[in-house]
């Protein structure tokens, strides 16, 4: 189980640094936030605030952010997902995607806020594209990872 979590995050990190044309980057989903939401919702016993913090630190190092920029949002999102996982898992997939959209919005709120503290201008419109792309991707992640877990008989 842990190995699946680690492998999924390594894949997500690779996907998030894959070089894209400058203008296409506005549509790249927030893969890390997506996985944190997924794991905190579907395996809360394996993935909590501490795991989210570790993920955030590694993400910040690899994405060359200020240390803590995405970490702050990720731990808050993991906490909210942890509070709501019982209700969320019983929803239809598209409703889960809506909830994921809100959570990614919260994540971006925090990371933009930290960027603002670091003295940058923030363009909110850019964040909307990534948030929407992330929410659209969420149901697919749920389905694919469910298939993988059934295939390898991992607890769900």
């Amino acid at each position: 189980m842990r190995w699946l979590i680690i492998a999924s995050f390594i894949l997500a990190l690779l996907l998030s640094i894959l070089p894209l044309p400058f203008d296409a980057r506005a549509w790249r989903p927030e893969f890390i936030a997506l996985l944190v939401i997924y794991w905190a919702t579907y395996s809360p016993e394996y993935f909590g605030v501490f795991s989210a913090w570790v993920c955030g630190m590694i993400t910040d190092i690899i994405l060359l952010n200020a240390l803590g920029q995405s970490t702050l949002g990720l731990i808050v999102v993991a906490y909210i997902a942890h509070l709501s996982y019982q209700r969320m898992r019983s929803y239809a997939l598209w409703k889960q995607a809506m909830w994921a959209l809100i959570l990614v919005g919260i994540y971006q709120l925090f990371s933009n806020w930290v960027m603002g503290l670091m003295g940058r201008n923030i363009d909110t419109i850019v964040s909307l594209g990534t948030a929407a792309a992330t929410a659209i991707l969420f149901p697919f992640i749920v389905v694919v990872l469910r298939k993988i877990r059934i295939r390898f008989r991992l607890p769900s």
Partner: protein
Amino acid sequence: MIIKPLFSKGPSYFSRLVLFVLITFILLAVGRYTDYLSHARYYLNNIAVPFYWIGNVPNQLGIWFDDTFTSRQTLEEDNARLRRQVLLQEARLQKMAAISNEANRLRGLMGSSQLLDDNVVVAELLGISPDPKVHKVIINKGSQHGAYIGQAVLDAYGLVGQIVAVTLYTSEVLFITDDAHAIPVQLIRNNVRTVIEGIGDLYRLRLRYVPSSMDIEKGDLLVSSGLGGRFPAGYPVATVSEIDRDPGESFVRVIATPTAQLNRSRHVLLVFPADRVQPEEGVVTSSLVESHMTDNSEHSGGEPVITTSAGSE
């Protein structure tokens, strides 16, 4: 499906959240207001390097594919075109040698210091900052190759930006279009000095505090002025593309387009000022005055590096 235990052990979930938020805040504050973390980052960023190498593999495969499966005809056409281009450039260089020599002699007459020339090292793009709001790239030259923080980076058409962080084998380049970046420039037409800054848009830069009396026109070329000591003087930065003179405003709004092809170039040039110790590896020096290029073949292991040395006597 697990059920929330009634009597949870250990600290409560909320207190754990508070603890980690606090730790993160402390890290952020330390990173923002002190310099301790940047030393740690020099080593920590090395963790990121393999990720960028792997992330670059699809690109490299594409290039390899293109190289391997080009038709003979395309290669021949390319070859002929490049030969023509080299001939033209060399002719232009011959003239340049004479002109720069003359310029230096005139400067000598005026008692001002001579124009020294800079060495450049070719670097390749390894990755692009994943955050769409940050205009940063990662290149494949690090402190091992002599790259240092604050070093100017060019491409074939103009100034690209400067290095803001180095690791052993890679460094981060902040583009001039990033909204945290500003650079002192001057108009090449009349030597008026001003400051140009990024606004987070890859195709637009803004000139700050341009008085309405200033002589500036659409199409003016702005070159780096070398003030501030960070960028070498005389490299093209941008051309003025929009001027909005609003009588109600105290300053003119001027927008310029960067001359460097920021979203296209795969290769950039690191500038080593002439007075700085040059790295040994892969540096080729050639003098314009003598009008010859040093043979690259003796440095076959290193990268093709060209030095333009304009008559420093």
